[in-house]
């Protein structure tokens, strides 16, 4: 009889159910969408932060002091230590290899331009370079990934070609010598003859010291400096998780012998994409290097990510609250609407428990159906939101499905419990009189 009553109750007033169902669907869709976005936003924003460029710097460990001003190393080529270009593929073999979004080696060479007779700095680097990875694949990276704000008028040099890109400051100073399409000759010292000819393909404006330098393919710079296969600095752009207490302990444990991580702590640290653990993993595959977090970038990123994350969670909770309220209100409405029915049932001798049971069962069934539809609508909504906010759609998370269903059921139950409790206190006569 219970099932029959339930079935009747569904069949009799389908139009009224529509509203409750709609509230459930929309409410749960919003809940799904906000949760999906909130779960993903850290990752998405971290990726956005990579527009700030590299957050890790790799230098030789036993180096002399770099004479670096405004990002350009002015040391002569015969001073200091170098790193091997051939090892770079190993970066894509570390535990967090997928978080390594890009890396660019730099080799700064003081040189002279024959056309102007002036001293300048050559910066050998990659723009888009295919790095062979030990597992046999290729990884394309370079300044395009680690220095995305660099703008070139004209075009970038071809990887490995006899071409170069000239800083805007230099080009302004010597417009005749550094026009696009001109050939310039570079030498290591002022006296030696012709030098290496390179075609200017573009003018670069970085807003930094590169504006007064000549950028050229790394192999060409290596050749001019006489250090084939070598470079001095490596900028790495990695997706990281904001630092917390564990990250800091992990970092300090590297240098401070007094701090020891327990094996569990170590595992957690190693398996979290903290900037310190990624730095540690890079040092493991590139021995003899010093890996520093570029703290200015890493810390700003970490702090903003944490704050925006907290903010978004609060907002998500607010949205969930609003959804819950909407659903609870409509559930309450359905119960209120049917007080007359409750009165009749009670007049016929139904206990409060039975009446409540029927209504609760109905609400929960509705909630589960509405929650299920809401989940899929919400997944679509999240896709759309992801697309419009971050440019790529947010993937649906199946883990949210049971969560959303349970949420819907609980909210609908709470929403109907209050009016049901009130209905329990009503004497049937009062309800039936219709006041």
């Amino acid at each position, binding site marked *: 009889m219970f099932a029959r009553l339930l079935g009747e109750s569904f069949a009799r007033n389908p139009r009224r159910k529509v509203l409750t169902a709609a509230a459930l669907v929309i409410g749960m869709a919003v809940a799904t969408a906000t949760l999906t976005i909130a779960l993903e936003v850290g990752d998405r924003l971290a990726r956005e932060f990579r527009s700030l460029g590299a957050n890790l*710097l790799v230098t030789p460990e036993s180096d002399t*002091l*770099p*004479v670096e001003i405004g990002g350009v190393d002015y040391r002569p080529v015969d001073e200091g230590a170098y790193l091997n270009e051939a090892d770079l593929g190993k970066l894509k073999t570390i535990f967090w290899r997928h978080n390594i979004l890009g890396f660019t080696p730099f080799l700064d060479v003081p040189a002279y331009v024959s056309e102007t007779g002036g001293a300048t700095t050559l910066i050998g680097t990659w723009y888009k370079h295919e790095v062979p990875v030990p597992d046999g694949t290729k990884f394309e990276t370079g300044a395009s990934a680690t220095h995305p*704000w660099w703008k070139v008028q004209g075009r970038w040099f071809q990887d490995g070609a006899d071409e170069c890109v000239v800083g805007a400051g230099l080009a302004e100073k010597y417009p005749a010598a550094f026009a696009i399409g001109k050939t310039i000759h570079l030498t290591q010292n002022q006296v030696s003859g012709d030098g290496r000819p390179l075609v200017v393909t573009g003018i670069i404006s970085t807003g930094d010291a590169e504006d007064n330098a000549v950028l050229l393919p790394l192999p060409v710079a290596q050749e001019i400096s006489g250090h084939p296969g070598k470079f001095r600095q490596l900028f790495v752009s990695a997706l990281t998780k904001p630092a917390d207490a564990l990250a800091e302990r992990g970092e300090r444990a590297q240098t401070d012998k007094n701090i020891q991580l327990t094996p569990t702590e170590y595992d957690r640290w190693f398996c979290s994409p903290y900037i310190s653990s990624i730095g540690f993993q890079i040092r493991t595959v590139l021995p003899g290097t010093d890996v520093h977090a570029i703290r200015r970038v890493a810390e700003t990123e970490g702090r*903003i990510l944490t704050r925006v994350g907290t903010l978004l969670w609060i907002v998500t909770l607010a949205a969930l*609250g*609003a959804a819950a309220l909407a659903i609870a209100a409509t559930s309450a409405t359905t119960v209120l609407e049917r007080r007359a029915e409750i009165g009749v049932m009670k007049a016929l001798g139904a206990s409060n428990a039975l009446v409540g049971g029927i209504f609760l069962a109905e609400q929960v069934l509705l909630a589960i159906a509405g929650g299920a539809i809401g989940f899929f609508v919400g997944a679509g909504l999240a896709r759309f939101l992801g697309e419009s*906010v971050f440019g790529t759609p947010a993937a649906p998370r199946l883990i949210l499905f049971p969560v959303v269903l349970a949420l819907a059921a609980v909210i609908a139950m709470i929403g109907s419990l209050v009016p049901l409790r009130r209905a329990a206190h009503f004497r049937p006569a009062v309800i039936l009189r219709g006041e």
Partner: protein
Amino acid sequence: MFWRLVFQLLRGSRGRLGVAILAIVSGAAVISALLNLDLGVQNKLTQEFRTLGANIVISPASGAPAQISGAEVPSLMPERDVLAALQQLPSAQVSAAAPYLYIVARAQNIRVVVAGTWPDQAQKLDATWKLEGNWVRSREDQSQCLVGRNVARRMQLALGNPLELHYMDRSAQCRVAGIVDAGGAEDNQVFASLSAVQSLANLPGQIGVAQLSVTGTAQIVADYAARLAAALPQYQVRPIRQVTEAEGALLGRIRLLIVSMVLLILILTALCVLGTMAALAMERRKDVGLMKSLGGSISRIVGIFLAEVGVLGAVGGLLGTILGAALAYWMGLRVFGTAISPRWEVFPATIALMIVVTLAGALPLRMLGNVKPAEILRGE
């Protein structure tokens, strides 16, 4: 009579309307909190982005912004000109500004970059520096200097050690007041007071570059840079693109997120009001039938109900806005550590939004137009 009716109706179904007003108040609270936050977040986040360091650089028109021994003759600019230009412009937006004169000196026979600057401002420019020891507080203090982490390691310097700097035939001495861990090129540099470096290099009153940290949106920074450039036509004034561009893009995304959340919550609020109003309309069908039999036109009857709902929206909106301002204040403290003060423009905006939403939620009242008094009054 109209308003008397409206208020009697409001009083009469206060239980039912309580649910609606709860929805409206909480919707309005969340929206006003988010709107306050959206306006506040911009300020707070730009503040956060200032830890990225300088975003405007003033340097001589061309050539390397440094003095390199052995390289090209350095381009320098007089300190006085730059300071004069900075003083002309409003200083409120500038959170820090420091002149730099870089020279390559020798210490313990090792070549090292020495940056002459104002230590108090350099500290503000680079908020992420970790310092072991003490900052040099005074610009005039020539006796103390800061050394980068790598410099300290290579030269085996500890806090309080003397450091002898040589440049051509001159020399100067300072005491190591602090060791800087900057996570960048600064780890390889020595920081001394500007006047000390100027006299060491025999370049009185000259600087190589000035760095500024300007607070505000990308647009504000660009505007400031443009005005500075106009005041200093002989020099190059560049916004640092790495910083300004990333900042703009990120702020844009975060604001978009907040705006989409506001929209979603608006929909939910409307939905909640809609549900309550549908029930209310159902409940009031008898009253409507009666009013119709008394000769009330449907537009007049619905008008009364709409006014009722409008009052509900306005009251709920007002309460919610105040609550939301408090919420934003709390969220500001919780998320950013400083309170977000409410903006007056949020008040009318939220209340208007809530009235619109409630009226939209009152759509079910339209079905009252179809009420047939004869059927309703028969008592079914």
